[in-house]
């Protein structure tokens, strides 16, 4: 089990749990990011933060501090 914030571009993973501030968790859920979903890390911004991920046809930009609360299982 690892945090989403630790993954490198190109990595795929399955989401195990989403934790963090309630507003953040709810927003991630609304985007469809919750347990059992598969995600792919696409890119890191120039200063290493935020990260770009894709789930299905949705692409999201997440700050590392936000991605730290998402635990994943790399595929």
């Amino acid at each position: 089990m690892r945090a989403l914030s630790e993954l490198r571009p190109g990595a795929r993973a399955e989401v195990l749990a989403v934790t963090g501030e309630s507003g953040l968790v709810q927003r991630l859920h609304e985007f469809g990011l919750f347990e059992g979903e598969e995600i792919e890390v696409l890119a890191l911004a120039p200063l290493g933060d935020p990260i770009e991920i894709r789930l299905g046809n949705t692409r999201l930009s997440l700050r590392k501090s936000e991605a730290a609360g998402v635990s994943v299982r790399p595929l």
Partner: protein
Amino acid sequence: MILTKTLTVALVGNPNTGKSTLFNALSGLRQRVGNFPGVTVEMKKGQFSAEGKTIDLIDLPGTYSLAARSPDEMVAVDLLLGRRPEEPRPDVVLSIVDATNLDRHLYLMSQLLDLGEPVVVAVNMIDAAEAQGIKIDCTKLSERLGVPVIPIQANKGVGLRDLMRAVFAAAESVPSPQRPVFPEAFEKEIAALQTEFGNEVPGFLTRRFLLDVGGYIEHWLLGKHGDKLRQKLISARQRLTEAGCAVPAVETRTRFGWVRSAVAAAVVKPTVRPVTWTDKLDRILTHRFWGTLIFLVVMFLMFQSIFLWAKPAMDAIDGVREKAAKALESAMAPGPLQGLVVDGIIKGVGSVLVFLPQIMILFGFIAVLEDCGYMARAAFLMDRLMSRCGLSGKSFIPLLSSVACAVPGIMATRVIENRRDRLATIMVAPLMSCSARLPVYVLLIGAFLKEGYSSWVPGFVLFGLYMIGFTVAPLVALLLKRTLLKGATPVFVMELPAYRRPAIRSVLRRMSEAGWAFVVRAGTIILAAMILVWALLYFPHTDAAGTPYYERIEKADQEAKEASEKIKGLKESGQEVPEELEAATAEPDRLNGEWKRNSLLGRAGLFLEPAFRPLGWDWKIGMAALASFPAREVIVGTLGLIYDVGDVDSKAIGDDTADEEAKEKAAGLTKAVKDDWSKDPVRGKYGVAVAMSLMVFFALCCQCASTLAVIRRETKSWLWPAFTFTYMTVLAYLGALLAFQLGAIITDAVG
């Protein structure tokens, strides 16, 4: 008959769904912006007729969910529930969804079903879905969801007639009872809470109260009912967690489960997701190196265009203004009315219109960047940098634009959804060194830091003055975010939408809307400020003997003309020119100076001189600074009047292409400032320090009525412009104080 009644339809959808495109396609040109007191959101309303019926269409701000977390988000929910006094409850809710991303978009649609109003689903971008091999059976989807589902292509106007027919049919039908089924434990808690609230809280809001931890409804109801309700809420959520359906996960699981089973039955997707254009483009555009490089090029182009492309248009507007002023000046008799029309109104209108080219070019860029999906990438690339001053990547473009001019920059903050971030960005945008400061800098650097200095000094000082803004703005932003605008960390998760070709029509529409909004809402305030300062410089308009100055000036002008004829004749015949003839040619400018010095503003300058003294200023400099309230560059013209060199055009300062007469006047002002200061013991000795103090003041102050007017327009409150003006003036005063005192010490030390 229901047919005579106007049908109210609310348009709801995620951002980047083509919602605005659909809105524009349906309502055409009959649109207006609806205002909602107390919040910064604007909603557009359009009215149109179809099949003999009149429809009021309300375009709600794009949202991912009805879980409101701020007053701005709550407006949309209240409007849908008919809880806003300004608008009737919608008869039909039109939900627009993206065909390429049905699951996520139907999530919001499933929340709309809970409102208890008829819902119609418009599946947009059906062509893009087909290109990806996604086949949607709308009839089957409609059966599963219990609402009409109409495929459309908003950008091509395909399917709109069917859509409107479905809306009319829905308006006369009973809302479908089909919707996601929540676990029994959850419904039990809702029932208990509803008994508690009774009729005070609609069922929809009771659900949101239980579901949205830390949400707007929670704050509102707990603030109203206090600790007893808080205890109930906590234990209800506790029981739900124990029952295995914790909030907010229970909602997403239930809704996505329902939506996905419907989609699975009605949609055929390729087993392997095809590589899309967006995939390919993002590999480059969000790449650490290439993405950054392309971003810098895009920003450079945008910046250049605000500066350069706008210039011919701005010059043209200025030219027309000057011609109009001249024509009216000669057509009208001298007097207060002529002064009001020529120097107050014409100048005021001109100074409003002159912003239009920059605003429209910037909004053209923003519209293209947003429509094609690049704006979110720009925010992604710049987020880390901006997070250092407590902001997010979305603040980058507004602040960069403010280097050209804060007015379009502040309007560009509309892309920032978070209210506190947006306010902080607005507050610091005027600190970015805008182009109106340049004439002040060039004038004073030319007068004091050119002759007798190495050739690199003027450029270095100019660079330093620009750096003041670039360093102070982030610091102030950080300070504001830590104090006045402190609050819970907002969610920075941002969607990076699929790339799309921007539609020229919508870009043009955005440009004209931005321009129009500026002229109507900010223009009136700017005009008022211009007229006020004109009046303060005009009155009293008679000398001690009661003769109006304009009469004396008219006479002196005549005499000056005759005198210069005589001088010409004398010079040609090689004779000496008597002094009184020379004096006569300078008399009109001297009289004008005397008039301004005697004006209300001149007297205010004199009265405030003790406050200006620590900055090394005399009352004349102070008065010119006061008079520049409408716009910074006005100080150049005012200094010209006070120093008896006549009206100087600020654009001629440092501009080698200006015409000879304007250049001569500009050079005359540089010399006059230098001469006047050299006569005074303080400014004679510490000329450089005074010049620095004045320049630092203008780097930091908010002497710009247009900026304040546009802040008022964007924040819908006088509080924020008042705050901006106050903090920047205090900052400018302290900066100028420091500059003069340090400069004086250095001058003394160097000897």
